[in-house]
């Protein structure tokens, strides 16, 4: 593809803008960035609107914007699981997560692993939760890079030889620098710009493109009949329902979600956002339909895009659609929205992984007497290391690995559900039992994914009937059963249960003092 100068200029201008905003954010809601809860949680000062932008920018990532329509483009109706997935999650967040916010504020917890450490008094269970979070996050960051790479290539930036990854490296260097200096304040500020850009892009697309195509019925008419709906059988339904159930259970266990929740200034902010965040779900549903629009326009038959489809597969559907229907300047704007949409979640994810490493591994196991400044510096360096790791992943390994790893990440993170979510309601479960349940779930989930060649839906045989279901859900059931049965056994050897939290902590409106750790 020839270099698209107009689009590239607009794209670069927006990147320069967000770079300035990223650095300026260090002085926003001023705090001592040498303290981890200030750098990594922005001091927990974000109100309803900023949290809405932050969580929206965080959960609905660039990769989502590329991959969900790509799935619709290639596989049809099943891609719409992203909609019920984000419908069922918010009532759950509404009920459950104010409790996590309150207990975290009461005890200065900054990660889910912190809570587990305090609730069960078990550093090994906390380590398992921390490691799972870090492991699940790394490929997710790598995937953001794929989103960025696709749009950069779509503007015709084709460098040869050793320079081929230069644009990615520059983008990530910018990201790493403002993250290091400004912490969570940077992605929060940039998320506001990015989300407005995404809304404008998507609304322009869903108004302009169906008009050009002669109405929505023509858009849906382009979808092959057998892909317009799910197959009419029980297996298709159980696959669809467990896919969105398991995805929803996993979503708010991801470290970057927990970071977003804990950075809010009150439990009411979380409750309000549970009602307001579905606006992004609607946006995501429209984005999924971009895949159908790409089918209707017939982008894969246009010779100019053949090489890019060969390189990126269905992930090129949305960029090709935009190139085909939008003027160059708006293509630049839309691609900048996707590109910045890669930076925001990548920033929050690496901060969240860094918080976990610094608080739950470095401080817990390596340097228990570290000063607050050492703790925050470790986190800043970890956030750099995490980004370099993600970059290496994309440069040196096939993209397929990142996608498979991210699938595994979703299957892994769900195994922190019993310790974290049930832990918010009861101390009946035993720490050791949860740790064994976690291990059983991790191993069985990974094993099922491997023998299923990394397809998420596993055809489980139950009493001679095949019940296809999402691997995360099946392995979670194993984890749950093991945790409950072993807890019952271990609890018979009655001993005093370690627990630093009190029931009233789960309703606390304010903490005892700034998050300095346990």
């Amino acid at each position, binding site marked *: 593809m020839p270099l698209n100068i107009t689009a590239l200029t607009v794209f670069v201008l927006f990147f320069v803008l967000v770079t300035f905003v990223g650095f300026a954010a260090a002085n926003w809601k001023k705090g001592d960035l040498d303290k981890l809860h200030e750098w990594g949680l922005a001091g927990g000062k974000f109100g309803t609107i900023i949290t809405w932008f932050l969580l929206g920018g965080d959960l609905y990532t660039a990769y989502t914007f590329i991959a969900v329509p790509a799935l619709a483009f290639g596989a049809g*109706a099943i891609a*719409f699981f992203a*909609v*019920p997935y*984000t*419908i*069922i999650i*918010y*009532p759950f967040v*509404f*009920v459950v997560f*104010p*409790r996590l916010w309150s207990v975290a504020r009461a005890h200065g917890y900054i990660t889910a692993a912190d809570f587990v450490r305090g609730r069960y008094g078990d550093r090994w269970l906390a380590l398992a939760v921390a490691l799972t979070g870090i492991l699940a996050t790394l490929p997710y960051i790598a995937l953001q890079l794929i989103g960025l790479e696709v749009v950069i290539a779509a503007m015709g930036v084709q460098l040869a030889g050793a320079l081929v990854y230069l644009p990615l490296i520059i983008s990530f260097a910018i990201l790493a620098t403002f993250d290091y200096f400004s912490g969570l304040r940077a992605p929060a500020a940039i998320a506001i710009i990015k989300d407005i850009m995404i809304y404008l892009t998507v609304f322009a697309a869903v108004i302009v493109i*169906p008009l050009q195509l002669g*109405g*929505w*019925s*023509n*858009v*849906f008419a382009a979808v092959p009949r057998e892909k*317009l*709906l*799910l197959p*009419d059988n029980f297996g*298709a*339904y159980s696959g*669809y*329902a467990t896919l*969105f*159930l398991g995805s929803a259970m996993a979503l708010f266990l991801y470290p970057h979600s927990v970071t977003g929740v804990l950075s809010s200034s009150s439990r*009411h902010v979380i*409750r*309000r956002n*549970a*009602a*307001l965040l*579905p*606006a992004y*779900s*609607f946006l995501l*549903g*429209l984005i999924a*339909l971009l895949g159908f629009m790409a089918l209707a326009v017939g982008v894969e038959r246009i010779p100019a895009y053949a090489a890019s489809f060969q390189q990126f597969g269905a992930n090129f559907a949305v960029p090709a659609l935009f190139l085909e229907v939008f003027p160059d300047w708006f293509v630049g704007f839309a691609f900048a929205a996707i590109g910045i949409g890669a930076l925001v979640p990548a920033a929050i994810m690496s901060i969240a992984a860094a918080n976990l490493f610094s608080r739950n591994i470095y401080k817990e196991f390596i340097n228990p007497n570290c000063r607050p400044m050492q703790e925050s510096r470790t986190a800043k360096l970890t956030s750099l290391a995490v980004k370099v790791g993600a970059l290496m992943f994309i440069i040196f390994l096939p993209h397929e690995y990142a996608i498979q790893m991210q699938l595994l990440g979703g299957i892994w993170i769900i195994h922190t559900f019993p310790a974290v979510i049930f832990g918010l*309601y*009861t101390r009946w479960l035993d720490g050791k039992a949860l740790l064994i349940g976690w291990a059983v779930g991790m191993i069985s989930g990974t094993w099922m994914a491997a023998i299923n060649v990394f397809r998420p839906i596993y055809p489980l045989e139950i009493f001679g009937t095949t019940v296809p279901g999402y691997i995360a859900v099946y392995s979670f059931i194993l984890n749950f059963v093991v945790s409950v049965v072993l807890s019952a056994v271990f609890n018979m050897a009655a001993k005093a249960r370690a627990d630093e939290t*009190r*029931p*009233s902590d*789960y*309703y*606390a*409106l304010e903490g005892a003092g700034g998050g300095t750790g346990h």
Partner: protein
Amino acid sequence: MEDNRDNGKKDHNGPILLLLLIPMLVFFVPLYNTVEPTLFGFPFFYWFQLGWIFVSMIVTAAVYFGTEPR
């Protein structure tokens, strides 16, 4: 779990929370896995799920206002 050391800052739970089961209707996939009735060219499968986002927003907002301490 019941809070035995209630200090007056309890969660404002109650039957109104049952309203939050309404969004869970999406688990009945066969209910909406059809083309008809279409709306503005959208098959039912698509507009039902998109529309249900708004239903769940309204329900959650109602529960919010119904449980927020005044």
